[in-house]
């Protein structure tokens, strides 16, 4: 196992386009010297990794590669872009588009992350101990290709439009989410252990969203189908009971919302509509 430690040498003042920081890229570079000469963009100036990070090789070994970033990486953007294997661990906050277009491998963040976490992700696993920004696992502007595989786990809260245009894969949010979780969703599963600020599943065509906390109002374009005692997500069975809504009917959608019955008493009036 080869592992590389990166420590920012200064407090970054401008965004750093750091998509060069990925296990595939470092593995291809093989020698530490070459890794040090990888190029990132500090605002509008290209810079070698070594000029803005202390680059240290912790272990020298075989195939699999681990990258550790220690310190405030919140200005780093696109870290782990398109990675296919290996791991990245961030001890501290990470920035925007972390794990963008990821195909495999693992990213672990002990801290918060910016928006577009795992955007267009195809495989692999991301785990964030703190909060995430908006557009977790979403598509890029104008595209309908959201997350299509892999797993994202955010222990803290997340912002708006979690899983926007999501096609497949799994997103689990430990805390709360903002509005429009699962907007334009086509498939896959989102589990929200906290509450949402409403409008979940807007324009969804397929896939499932499970909310254990409060959802506020359900959109008028969802109709209640049944009450289920358990939501099966992968192997584990999340205990309900859940109101199960179908929609978004305004877009002829066939997605499902699983909303905790006990935490959403104001939705009881829907029960009269269950055949």
């Amino acid at each position, binding site marked *: 196992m080869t592992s590389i430690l990166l420590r920012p040498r200064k407090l970054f003042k401008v965004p750093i386009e750091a998509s060069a920081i990925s296990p595939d890229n470092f593995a291809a570079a093989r020698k530490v010297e070459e890794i040090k000469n990888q190029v990132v963009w500090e605002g509008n100036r290209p810079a070698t990794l070594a000029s803005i990070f202390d680059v240290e090789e912790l272990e020298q070994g075989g195939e699999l590669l681990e990258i550790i970033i220690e310190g405030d990486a919140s200005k780093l953007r696109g870290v782990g872009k398109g990675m296919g294997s290996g791991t990245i661990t961030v001890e501290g906050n990470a920035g925007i588009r972390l794990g963008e277009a990821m195909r495999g491998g693992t990213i672990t963040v002990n801290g918060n992350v910016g*928006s*577009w976490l795992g955007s267009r992700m195809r495989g692999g696993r991301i785990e964030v101990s703190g909060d995430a*920004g*908006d*557009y977790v696992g979403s598509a890029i502007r104008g595209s309908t290709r959201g997350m299509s595989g892999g797993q994202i786990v955010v222990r803290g809260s997340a*912002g*708006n*439009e979690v899983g926007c245009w999501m096609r497949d894969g799994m997103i689990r949010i430990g805390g709360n989410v*903002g*509005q429009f979780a699962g907007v334009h969703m086509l498939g896959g599963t989102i589990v929200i252990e906290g509450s949402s600020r409403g409008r979940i599943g807007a324009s969804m065509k397929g896939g499932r969203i499970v909310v254990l906390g409060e959802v506020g109002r359900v959109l008028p374009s969802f109709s209640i189908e049944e009450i289920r005692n358990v939501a099966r997500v992968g192997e584990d069975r999340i205990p309900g009971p859940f109101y199960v809504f179908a929609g978004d009917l305004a877009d002829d959608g066939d997605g499902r919302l699983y909303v905790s019955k006990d935490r959403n008493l104001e939705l009881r009036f829907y029960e009269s509509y269950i055949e």
Partner: protein
Amino acid sequence: MKVIVVTGRSIAQGRSKESKFSDEYARAAATCEVDPEDLSTLGVKPGQKVKLTTSRGSVNLFASVSSQSPHRGIVFIPFGPWANSLMDAETDGTGMPTLKGMEAEIELAAEDEVLGLKELLAKNLKERGRT
């Protein structure tokens, strides 16, 4: 009293926004329009000063009777630096800050002043560390 703040264009603000340091602009942009019933509940007469507070900041404004009511529970403030002392810079990933629909607290601000633009900037931007 809990209200929702909505900012927007007004003719008076539009006519004077090219003369930012004029009194006319200060009157136009530092005045909030309150629903007549809300005003009476608050015990505020038009022209008196009110203080608005949101999660992002607070500002003193002149209160006026809304000519575009009813809108109980909504306070309208024309676009400008006074309104923006209250609004949330969070854009939810869209680039657009939240300039309409923020929850706020409104109360009578008997003594403290409604600041002119110069004083408002001095207050708002005081810890303007020169990097």
